[in-house]
């Protein structure tokens, strides 16, 4: 059954708009769901409402069919992982991990075994007696994860758990967290503003904006078929070209390519923006070399007015600003969204 969120509204005193404005969401047993959205979109508020840390202005949070209204935080049996871990500085690593077991009155021997098991699972075997102040940022988050998992939460809530870490560590931890969650069969909701992180960790990704949940879908499907222009824009689609059938062609970050030199001048007007359509002339504004590829910024009119776009220029030497290049749409990097 898992988690059911029904028409939930979260409202802060003095705020003009609802932080969460009527959200419905289901998370199946053992599933990992990511909530993706810009900061201030209400994703953290929704998470805190599920945990019982924010009161609901309206709606219901149910788990395994039971309404959680009136069940206080500490009796929900959920786990929560914060951005900075929030370890208890006055307890060592082992006693931090054991905390949830102590509140559940787990016998000492079992507690010790469980702590060892979890520190092992997060790659920190033997760290029991270390003071938490001596740990690096990544180690702290691993301890926080072990602490959250120790009491076997029915649902683990992760609130931007890696935002305070540097990029390389973040990417590594995202993979590890998925492994640990899957290994423990833990149901989880993961809040983040980082697309790569959401797509790495989650089985399904929900996109939130201004308190509303716009779309929930598996990563591949979300990317291939954004439900709306807003979702596509948030995912990084850079231009929207009207199509003959009334929909919009969304041009993704890799949806535009500079034609190799000597491939000929663009043809006639044709159907603008149709994948495979003849190339269009574009004027180069600048170029950058990122992640092993040349990306050029161009100004071009794909059929929705002249605007700045980024095109991949594989096999093309970076052209000087002001020169004209031919650009074509790559169907693999584009999607169709309703207008």
């Amino acid at each position: 059954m898992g988690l059911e969120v029904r028409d939930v509204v979260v409202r802060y005193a003095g705020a003009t708009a609802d932080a969460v404005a009527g959200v419905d969401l289901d998370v199946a047993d053992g599933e990992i769901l990511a909530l993706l959205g810009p900061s201030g979109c209400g994703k953290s508020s929704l998470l805190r409402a599920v945990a019982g840390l924010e009161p609901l202005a309206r709606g219901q949070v149910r788990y395994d069919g039971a309404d959680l209204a009136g069940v206080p935080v500490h009796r929900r049996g959920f786990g929560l992982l914060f951005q900075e871990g929030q370890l208890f500085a006055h307890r060592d690593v082992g006693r931090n991990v054991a905390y949830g077991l102590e509140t559940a009155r787990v016998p000492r021997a079992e507690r010790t075994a469980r702590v060892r098991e979890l520190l092992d699972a997060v790659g920190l075997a033997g760290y029991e007696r270390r003071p938490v102040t001596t740990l690096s940022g990544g180690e702290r988050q691993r301890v926080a994860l072990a602490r959250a998992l120790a009491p076997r939460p029915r649902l683990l809530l992760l609130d931007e758990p890696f935002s305070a870490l540097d990029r390389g560590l973040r990417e590594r931890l995202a993979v590890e967290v998925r492994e640990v969650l899957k290994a423990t069969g833990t149901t989880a909701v993961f809040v983040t503003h980082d697309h790569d992180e959401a797509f790495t960790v989650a089985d399904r990704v929900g996109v939130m904006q201004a308190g509303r949940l716009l779309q929930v879908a598996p990563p591949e499907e979300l990317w291939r078929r954004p439900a709306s222009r807003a979702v596509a824009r948030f995912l990084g689609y850079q231009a929207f070209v009207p199509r003959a059938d009334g929909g919009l062609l969304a041009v993704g970050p890799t949806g535009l390519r500079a034609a190799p030199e000597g491939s000929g001048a663009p043809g006639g007007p044709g159907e603008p923006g149709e994948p495979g359509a003849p190339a269009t002339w574009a004027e180069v504004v600048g170029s950058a070399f990122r992640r092993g590829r040349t990306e050029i910024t161009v100004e071009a009119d794909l059929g929705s007015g002249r605007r700045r776009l980024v095109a991949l220029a594989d096999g093309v030497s970076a052209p000087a600003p002001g020169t004209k290049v031919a650009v074509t749409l790559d169907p693999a990097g584009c999607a169709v969204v309703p207008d």
Partner: protein
Amino acid sequence: MDPDGRRLTAQGRGAVASAPRSAAPRGAAGRWAAPLGWGLAVAVPLGFLGLFFAWPVAALVARGFVSDVGAPDLSGVQEVLSAPRTWRLVGQTLGQAVAGSVGAVLLGLPGAYLLYRTTFPGRSVVRGLVTVPFVLPTVVVGVAFKSLFQPGGMLGWMQLEETFAAVVVALVFFNYSVVVRTVGGLWERLDPRAEQAARALGASPVRAFCTVTLPALAPAIASAAAVVFLFCATAFGVVMVLGGIGYGTIETEIYQRTTQFLDLRSASVLSVLQLLVITLALWVAGRARARREHALHLESDRTAAHRLRPRDLADGAALAVTAVTVVGLLVLPLAGLVVRSFRTPTGGWGLDNYVALGTTGGRNALVVTVWEALGTSLRTAALATVMAVVVGGLVALVVSRRPRARAARRAVGLLDAVVMLPLGVSAVTVGFGFLITLDRPLGLDVDLRTSGLLVPIAQAVVAVPLVVRTVLPVLRAIDPRLREAAGVLGASPGRVLRDVDLPIALRSLGLAVGFAFAVSLGEFGATAFLARPDSATLPVVIYRLIGRPGAENYGMALAASVVLALLTATVMMLAERLRGDRASGAAGGEF
């Protein structure tokens, strides 16, 4: 094997079994425990302060405006306000407070810079030394400066005995640490990059200091100055010992009108007048503090101290000013006190004065021996500390919360302001109020005045704000998510208090206990009113000895002052050790 059969293996790292927790319904007991607990946490301090602070002070205020037969009567007010003597006293009080705060701020700023913005060997020793005066009993400070300024004293040639200047110097001595610690605490964490940016934009060091650093420090300076103003305006022990005959303030006048002329009516009018002045100062301090909490966002987490560079102009000047201040203003009087205490009444050197502490003084100046008074002091202070820590700890706990409902948030803010009042209302006023209200409180047939409980209660009232100010910053600094993390891990609200708040607060509680004990030990204003001769405390005995003729009594006063100072310093040192390093500049003498 996991009953769910969902045992999986994380790649090469061993398996973690999963048997999900289930939600437990909330018991009936749990539903009432929280409101009941918080209700008690609010009711106990409010009841205590209401009965032992608000009521006596209110009764006192009423005394000034009601005639003997109970009708409203403003003739007393008119009489007091039209007397030139009143306005001379008001002038002296304000003059003394302004001079004291200006002096403390001018000397305190270089001190704050040196002790919080630079590092040098022995810095922590100097920091500790600077704190000593603040916790020293006022009577001891008075005696120390008196022995310095009197003819034949080390600074006798300055002819400052029984002058305005002598009182102001002693007040600056007292409050120097308030400025150093309050301003230093903020300065230490001030992001140096703002000043560096100003320098890079072409500002000279002086200009960068005046246009960037000083405005950033302004809230802390204003807050410290207001508190010092308050302490100076209500100073009692120092003025009584040092001021001599022609000198007085509203505070000493209240005491004299009550104890010597039994003129309760005009004394209470003066109390009201003083309350007005103090409320104004507290209001300014509160506003400055609010702005400072606002300004905290500009701070960096790490401290920005550099090694002391004596050749650098700024560092050199701060070093020179602070060295002169610490040696001349802090060390000299204390050293002088200790040295003079070994001077025998016959003019030689020896332990005679300390031996005499076992007697009741020359010509039976006292009813009890000084050692007996010390015993009374310790017992009283211990009782007062227990009360102050319980009440102050509860207040700090309640005030550290940020309730969701706006009305509750307002109420918490109000409580925060109300418990600070005893800091400002003069101890003499409190003691006086006790005298007129607690003979048969609430119609009960007990006279608290003779029960011996009155003195510790009065001392506790004075100590409560200090306990609150010591514990509160530490509780407030706890990230709310730490409590949430514990809650999500299954800890009930009560358990969160025990496992998160308590261990962190305990470290500051040690300091709070020390503070409360030291303040109670040295409390003079209210105690002078309430202590009977046979149960006099050490400060009261010292004051009495100073007032009696005879070299023998004077020598005993010096020796007793040294004993009291040593005792207070020891208590504070123990407390500082207890608090650990976490409390940073937030605790102790910062308001």
